[in-house]
């Protein structure tokens, strides 16, 4: 099959569909069809060709587009097989359901556009600029809030924590004071120790910095002394006698 040349502007245009119902509404209108009497074979064919075309144009599709494709195919199949009269009443009509969904979706799409025509704050109208020095602090004992405000507040903290957790863990893990205690504990057993062996196995820059700070502090307090036998050689630490 020949590949249709991908044009940027097609991409942009095709993304105006918010979902499968939006696409179906468009096809109905485009072909001047009656929403109450949709020719199912025709609309299914159009819908599926559309999905195929979007795919050729590399427009990524939400899975919901495929769900509606399956529904259309199911309705089409049902219409080809005559349903026994006695069963008809129990079975809900999927075509009727789809029509209702389209009507309801269209209604709210229009309602959204109507709402867009209202005088919108900070677009059509503005309130008094709130000046810090004029801000009035309520001293009323009454508080307006409900438990779901708390829930949302908690969620916002959790969301934030996801990004920041790592940084906090690091700081927590390697406080200088703690490292000083670690070093003194280890060195009291062995009397001498190399600087490198003070670092944890998978050490970070932060570990190095904190360890150096801890050692410097111990040297300053004359609790340790250090020796380096040759330039760039191992630094040995001893307990100060």
């Amino acid at each position, binding site marked *: 099959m020949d590949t249709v040349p991908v044009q940027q502007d097609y991409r942009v245009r*095709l993304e105006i569909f918010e979902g499968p119902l939006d696409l179906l509404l468009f096809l109905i209108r485009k072909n001047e069809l009656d929403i109450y009497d949709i020719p199912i074979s025709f609309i299914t064919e159009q819908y599926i060709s559309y999905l195929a075309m979007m795919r050729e144009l590399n427009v990524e599709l939400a899975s919901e587009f495929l769900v509606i494709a399956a529904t259309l195919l199911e309705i089409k199949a049902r219409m080809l097989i005559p349903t026994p009269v006695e069963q008809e009443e129990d079975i809900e009509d999927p075509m009727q359901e789809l029509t209702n969904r389209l009507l309801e979706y269209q209604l709210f799409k229009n309602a959204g556009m109507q709402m867009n025509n209202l005088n919108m*704050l*900070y677009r059509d109208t503005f309130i008094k600029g709130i000046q810090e020095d004029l801000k009035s602090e309520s001293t009323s004992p009454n508080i307006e809030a409900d438990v779901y405000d708390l829930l949302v507040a908690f969620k916002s903290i959790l969301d934030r924590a996801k990004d920041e957790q790592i940084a906090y863990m690091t700081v927590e893990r390697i406080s200088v004071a703690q490292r000083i205690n670690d070093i003194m504990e280890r060195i009291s057993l062995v009397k001498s120790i190399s600087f490198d062996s003070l670092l944890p196995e998978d050490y970070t820059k932060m570990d190095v910095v904190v360890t150096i700070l801890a050692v410097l502090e111990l040297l300053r307090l004359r609790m340790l002394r250090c020796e380096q036998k040759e330039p760039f050689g191992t630094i040995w630490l001893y307990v100060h006698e």
Partner: protein
Amino acid sequence: MEKDKLIAIIEALIFASDKPLKTRYIEQVMSIVDLGNLTVGTLIEELKGIYTMGNRGIELVEVAEGWQFRTKPGLAEWIKRLNTVKPSKLSMPALETLAIIAYRQPITRAEIEYVRGVDSGAVLKTLIDRRLIKIIGKKELPGRPLVYGTTQEFLEVFSLKDISALPNLDDIKQMSSSETELERNQTELPLPATEPTDEE
């Protein structure tokens, strides 16, 4: 107290309030003075009249069940020239979702997604972050799903007196679908050439 003085007090109270001020709070503040045969309601109407008469840049409007001074809608372009105000815009998916919630509240996420036909998690998050909607409870259904509703800020942003001031849904039903499709028709889409083939 003279009527002019009473109106001046109300004007100052509404101006000083960061949020639309409910009539009953004005009444509580004014409860220490004898209004005679006047009411807070009639005084507010008179204050509103002062701003309506004459060519003023601000007006007194009733939003979110309270009173607030706002700039006249026709002047928005001038204020935007100041560059100090954040412009506010909502995308079509956001508006559509907001409409479903506004008219059908309390409503679950699953119900919203059934109407829209697409996953709506991201757009719900945006609307919560903008404080236009909030969780208002749980539904008596298996799993006790959360239900959403519009907020006070929603009424403020859309300049609505209360939720009943939304455009009437029956009127919207009457609207011919063609007029709502104006913008879409500007974008011509390449369509596979298929003729209606349905027999029946």
